[in-house]
């Protein structure tokens, strides 16, 4: 069985600007593949190329084994949501879905009822009056109405409240269990960490990294954190004993919030034995008030990978 998505050195330039630059990626069947990137990184352009909405400047893309643009029949097996939810505002939820059902040549009108039930949609509400969350549900319903083999979702949980996010996450996991392949772009990294089986990081149009979500553990940076009542003194004590302390981050993560860490800590390489650190500091009269192993989460790893945080 061919891969769900395969791009080979695919690029797109708008004028002289490389929106997507030589991206080669493979999404295997049954995966939830998350493409992470900042705004303008090239996520949406790549997704539009996968859906045949934009022609690549060079390279090629295949969806479910079919070269994009060769056979429109493949779209019968693909559901998608691109750049936010949209619907005809003057029509009801049911009418919007009925249009999708007919354009997708689905014979059974039951498809509309089933997908409305699955996404808890109110049939007679006008689409123009829906909340952001319900508009997102309607857009997902349009993507799911034909029970696709492959779902391509651009920011699927944008605008949803926490309960909605959990609901969509649960639904995507159910779909994966049913054998549906999901390719999603997101900047909500906590969601991606919970959902994805593989992760790609795109920045400046280039695919910077690609890894199995299970391997994140082996990629993240760990540090031993040591807090004392006098961290400057502790640093000198440790240095005198030949224990290296790491420089503070050159650039802080954006918006540290109104309550900065009340217990600032020194960072040491993860391999430093914590028992030795504790012994040295206690004997020098500067006992640790906190000694902990800290590891990056996906967000920090992502920001470090794209150079937004060191």
């Amino acid at each position: 069985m061919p891969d769900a998505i395969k791009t080979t050195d695919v690029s797109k330039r708008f004028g002289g600007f490389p929106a997507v630059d030589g991206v080669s990626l493979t999404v295997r069947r049954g995966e939830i593949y998350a493409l992470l990137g900042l705004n303008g990184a090239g996520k949406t352009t790549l997704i539009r190329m996968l859906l045949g909405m934009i022609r690549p400047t060079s390279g090629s893309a295949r969806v479910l084994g079919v070269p994009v643009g060769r056979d429109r029949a493949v779209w019968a097996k693909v559901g998608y949501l691109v750049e936010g939810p949209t619907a005809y505002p003057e029509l009801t939820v049911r009418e919007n879905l009925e249009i999708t059902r007919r354009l997708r040549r689905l014979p059974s009108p039951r498809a509309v009822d089933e997908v409305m039930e699955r996404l808890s949609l109110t049939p007679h509400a006008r689409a123009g009056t829906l909340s952001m969350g319900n508009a997102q549900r309607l857009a997902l319903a349009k993507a799911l109405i034909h029970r696709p083999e492959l779902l391509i979702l651009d920011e699927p949980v944008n605008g949803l409240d926490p309960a909605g996010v959990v609901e969509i996450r649960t639904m995507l996991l159910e779909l994966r269990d049913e054998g549906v392949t999901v390719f999603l772009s997101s900047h909500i990294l906590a969601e991606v960490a919970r959902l994805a089986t593989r992760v790609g990081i795109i920045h400046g149009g280039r695919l910077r990294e690609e890894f199995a979500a299970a391997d994140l553990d082996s990629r993240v940076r760990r540090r031993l954190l040591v807090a004392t009542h006098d961290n400057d003194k502790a640093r000198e004590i440790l240095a005198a004993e030949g224990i290296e302390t790491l420089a503070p981050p050159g650039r802080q993560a954006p918006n540290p919030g109104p309550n900065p860490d009340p217990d600032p800590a020194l960072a040491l390489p993860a391999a430093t034995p914590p028992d030795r650190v504790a012994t040295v500091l206690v004997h020098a009269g500067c006992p640790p008030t906190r000694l902990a192993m800290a590891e990056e989460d996906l967000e920090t790893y992502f920001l470090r990978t794209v150079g937004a945080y060191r």
Partner: protein
Amino acid sequence: MTTEIGPALWAELLKARRSRLSWISALAFTIAPAVGALIMFVVRNPARARSMGLIADKAAFSGATGDWPGYLALLGQMVAVAGLLVFGMIVIWLFGREFADRTAKDLLALPAARESIVLAKFAVALLWCLLLTVQLCLLGLAFGAALGLPGWSAATAADGLARVLAAAFLTVLLVTPFGLAAGMGRGYLAAVGVMFGTLALAQVVAALGHGAYFPWAVPALLAQVAAETRQAPGPLGYTLVAAVGVAGVLGTASWWRRADHAR
């Protein structure tokens, strides 16, 4: 791939039925024969016309005769000139709304060919415009009968109404490029600009006496020839109108198929 337009036609008809433009266009095509009837009333009642000042002047300026041939010719001119605006707005709305509401992307990766959606939109535009024209004709007959206009005969009515319908059909062909403009401009604004520019150009070219060779002036000339036999459009004019219609449909379909839909 299927080019069957049935589902797309159903969708476009539903959207058209629910749009405010359907009511606005129907209102415009109610006002037009009413204004025509008012002009007939003024022309047939010169004593009252003098007391009505500007309206009387305008009625006189229209050059209309106060009888059935004159009234039907006036309706034909209204379809040709006001129709370019109203029919143009209909085509611009049918295509431009997909960009204004950002729904175009939902039409691009479907098993159905994009051309089927474009053809369905033009088919609905044709049906919509012809229904408006029929409405205008029926109201015109009612208003003309209520005024008791002289010069009625079945042959006169058939000739006048056929001319109105022909002007409407030619006008529908001439507004198809506005669908392409709505796509290329990704919304209403650019297409509306193109429409007003075209209308202004048609007026200028017709005033210079070359209207028979400028497609967008041809329907108005066709409608006028009942009253005045000047600048009658010939085969070249009609051929150019047909060419504009075909080019508008093919150009729009080609744009939807080939353009980069990055927004």
